[in-house]
């Protein structure tokens, strides 16, 4: 089945259940972290602990081994899955066990230990209710924390009815839970080996933290005489004290619980007596706590990731799932599409690339659009979009697809036949736009013909249902060059950055920006400046993006020298200057450019706050308006300025709160992803047609958002700066 078919099928079959759950978790996260006194401080602390731990990993592993051994346990470091499974099989065989009960562990899924043990004739029982459902259904997890979110209550009821002969039909979630609890309870007390994961391990004491809600992990350990814990080597932290920020952040970041029901802090082997659950004579205290403990740590590519400057951050991940839940695409398709062999969601690209390899990562890496909504949600501050970009770049370079002459001729880039055709087309949109303007309106007419749409779909994967941008013959730069700036005694001086879309397509919003700035006594110049590199960056063409970044930085430098501020209309380009360029240009020019760049409404806000004459721009007069901010703009905390300006000017502003519009640059144009893009867009549409919003004119800051809203609504959206001019 093709990728597109697969995505469509999953949206149809699992989309609704995944969406409801993931969005619920995401809303829960916002509410729960808001209760913390110092959320940002706690995240910074968590990040620092992980940075330090991964830096000192070999030393901490030695210390952990000493601690575990002095507690009476053993520690085994397995090179890969087969090595780990051989060890676990030998432990189970030595114990002569016929049943292993398991609590939820992604690492054990990674090594596929269930299959290895089953091959030895051992009965392996998943005791986490979600995992058990999947074991019965023979399905893979669709979410790293709540593995069965793709299954509705009805689907689980049907599954149980099919697999078990129950006296009464099980209908409610309560019935189903009770049934599972009873059934699994019997199996747990009969098992010899308990297999758990470990969310964290402390080197100083040889303790482990297990974060759970059901109580099955506690039972798995307490009811068996052999405890095997499986975890990646990256789970070690120096001390027990270090657990605190994680304990406070992991549940909030994931499912939005302040804390899960149980955080087990175990220093195994634990003291709980090993009892015979059928004994009705001996008191509990008379049984011995005669228990073995084996800690099985798994490398499986992680030590290599540690050496890799770009993938290293992945090892900080605590698998909380915030980057899944906050992801608009994930909310629509879930982990069966947005995931690899084991891991899912935004960070899965890093895990799967490091553990399974680039083939696996390539299967789903495109689903990260770089919207950055996961960035502030990640409790350890991993730049998840960057990891996706890097892996995409590596995949591009590895895929030896012959670049075609047409696009080669059209698109001189730095990628040296690296990226596939479609990626190079979108990545070199600057060339397309320049040609488009030069030959407009003919280029627009031609592009609209059925024959060209068919060819574009075939060669470039551009979905024919999308309207293409219409290039303007007169660019913003041309228009500006033909007029005299008319500010006599300016309060500030700016260079307005002519981003690709404002310059070639949405020229009107650029003109509006110039007029508003001038009305507020700002001296404006609009020089030709290369495109920001956002387009190639989002295709994983990092070398091309770097080349753009350097040229932009050089082109803007004299204006900065001259004391001008840089004002940007397109939020995704503003985010390049203030965020992404940190990785693309040298420290000093980045620091200067980022400190002096402003999104247009952010700048207007600053002008008004500093005494600019409000009456020089058009007032809202109490008019009602709906505003959709841009994903990257929100990540940078800039939504508030647009809302602030509009409210100050007398607008009644309703805002949307979906994570992304679904268009995300070129993503929504791609034939494979058109339906997904529209599905994500539907959630935005729902908010824009809600009762109190339906009749409001819509404004949006991002080009992609404007295009998406245009296709979702009858109402034509505009950029907010356009409201400010007559």
């Amino acid at each position, binding site marked *: 089945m093709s990728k597109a078919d697969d995505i469509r099928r999953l949206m149809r079959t699992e989309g609704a259940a995944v969406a409801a759950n993931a969005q619920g978790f995401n809303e829960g996260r916002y509410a729960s972290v808001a209760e913390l006194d110092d959320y940002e401080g706690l995240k910074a602390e968590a990040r620092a602990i992980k940075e330090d731990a991964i830096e000192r990993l070999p030393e901490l592993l030695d210390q952990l081994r000493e601690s575990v051994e002095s507690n009476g346990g053993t520690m085994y470091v397995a090179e890969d899955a087969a090595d780990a499974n051989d060890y676990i099989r030998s432990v189970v065989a030595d114990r002569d066990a016929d049943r292993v009960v398991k609590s939820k562990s992604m690492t054990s899924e990674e090594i596929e230990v269930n299959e290895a043990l089953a091959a030895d004739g051992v009965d392996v029982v998943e005791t986490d209710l979600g995992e058990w459902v999947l074991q019965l259904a023979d399905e893979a997890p669709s979410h790293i924390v709540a593995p069965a979110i793709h299954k509705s209550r009805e689907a689980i009821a049907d599954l149980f009815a099919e697999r078990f002969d129950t006296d009464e039909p099980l209908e409610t979630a309560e019935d189903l839970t009770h049934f599972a609890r009873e059934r699994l309870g019997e199996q747990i007390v009969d098992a010899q080996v308990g297999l758990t994961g470990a969310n964290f391990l402390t080197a100083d004491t040889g303790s482990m933290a297990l974060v759970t809600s059901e109580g099955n992990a506690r039972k798995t350990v307490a009811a068996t005489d052999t405890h095997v814990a499986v975890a990646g080597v990256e789970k070690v932290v120096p001390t027990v004290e270090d657990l605190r920020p994680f304990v406070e952040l992991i549940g909030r970041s994931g499912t939005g619980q302040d804390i899960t029901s149980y955080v087990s802090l175990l220093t195994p082997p634990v003291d709980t007596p090993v009892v015979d659950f059928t004994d009705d*004579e*001996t008191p509990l205290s008379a049984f011995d706590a005669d228990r073995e403990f084996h800690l099985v740590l798994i490398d499986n590519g992680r030590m290599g990731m540690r050496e890799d400057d770009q993938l290293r951050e992945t090892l900080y991940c605590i698998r909380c799932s915030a980057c899944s839940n906050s992801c608009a695409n994930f909310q629509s398709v879930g982990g069966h599409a947005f995931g690899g062999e084991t891991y899912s969601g935004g960070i899965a690209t890093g895990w799967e690339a490091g553990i399974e390899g680039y083939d696996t990562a390539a299967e789903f890496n495109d689903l990260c659009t770089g919207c950055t909504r996961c960035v502030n949600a990640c409790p350890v501050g991993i730049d998840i979009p960057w990891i996706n970009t890097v892996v995409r770049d590596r995949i591009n370079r590895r895929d030896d697809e012959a670049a075609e002459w047409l696009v080669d001729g059209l698109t001189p880039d730095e990628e040296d036949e690296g990226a596939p055709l479609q990626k190079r087309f979108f990545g070199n949109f600057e060339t397309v736009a320049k040609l488009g303007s030069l030959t407009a309106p003919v280029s627009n007419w031609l592009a609209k013909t059925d024959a060209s749409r068919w060819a574009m779909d075939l060669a470039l994967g551009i979905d024919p249902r999308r309207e293409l941008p219409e290039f303007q013959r007169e660019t913003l730069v041309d228009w500006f060059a033909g007029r005299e700036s008319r500010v006599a005694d300016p309060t500030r001086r700016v260079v307005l950055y002519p981003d690709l879309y404002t310059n070639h397509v949405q020229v009107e919003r650029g003109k509006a920006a110039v007029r508003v700035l001038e009305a507020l006594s700002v001296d404006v110049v609009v020089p030709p400046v290369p495109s920001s590199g956002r387009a190639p960056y989002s295709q994983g063409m990092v070398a091309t993006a770097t080349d753009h970044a350097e040229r932009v930085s050089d082109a803007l430098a004299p204006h900065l020298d001259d004391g001008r501020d840089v004002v940007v209309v397109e939020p995704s380009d503003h985010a390049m200057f203030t965020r992404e360029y940190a990785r693309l240009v040298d420290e000093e020019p980045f620091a200067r450019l980022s400190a002096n760049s402003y999104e247009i409404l952010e700048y207007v806000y600053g002008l008004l706050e500093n005494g600019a004459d409000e009456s020089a721009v058009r007032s809202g007069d109490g008019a009602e308006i709906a505003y959709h901010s841009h994903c990257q703009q929100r990540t940078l905390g800039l939504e508030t300025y647009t809302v602030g300006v509009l409210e100050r000017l007398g607008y009644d502003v309703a805002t949307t709160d979906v994570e992304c519009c679904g268009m995300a640059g070129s993503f929504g144009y791609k034939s494979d992803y058109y339906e997904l893009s529209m599905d994500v867009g539907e959630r935005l549409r729902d908010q824009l047609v809600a009762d109190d919003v339906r009749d409001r004119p819509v404004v949006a800051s991002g080009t992609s958002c404007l295009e998406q809203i245009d296709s979702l609504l009858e109402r034509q959206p505009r950029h907010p700066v356009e409201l400010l001019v007559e």
Partner: protein
Amino acid sequence: MSTSALTQFEAALDELGASATHVERDAFGDHVEELLDPPAVGVTLEETLGDDALSLDGTSVSVDPTPVELREATTGVTAATLGIADYGSVVLTPTTRGSELVSLFVDRHVVVVRASDVVDDMKTAVDTLAVEFRETGGSAIVATGPSATADMGELVQGAHGPREVHVVVVEDE
């Protein structure tokens, strides 16, 4: 412990759907009796709480039960070494007497904590445990509210662990 910590502790418990009551030391046994849903089992509380007045002797709780008794019990009574005010959590210590089994294999968990052991926040609790772990190699369960799952399509309380949690806060001497 401060009065505000206790107030916060109880408010947090309330939000979790767990109940809490206060009792003076000398009324302890009678108070616990009222909270039981029989049959009830328990562990000796004196060793954890370090106070002979906090005994289950004289109640209908079967202290140090057999495994079969445990599995047939509805209520389990154990002690917590700490309460954590800002989360409404209790810290349970698995002991060689089977405290972990009694807290876990029952429908209703009645957990006893001394008012003076209720600390303000998670940081204080983890720091306390860290020192203890390094000294004794101990373990602890930070338990917050009843066991729960959302895996069957909606939130249900009482997954593998107790469905109900009641915290008894004992006023100190």
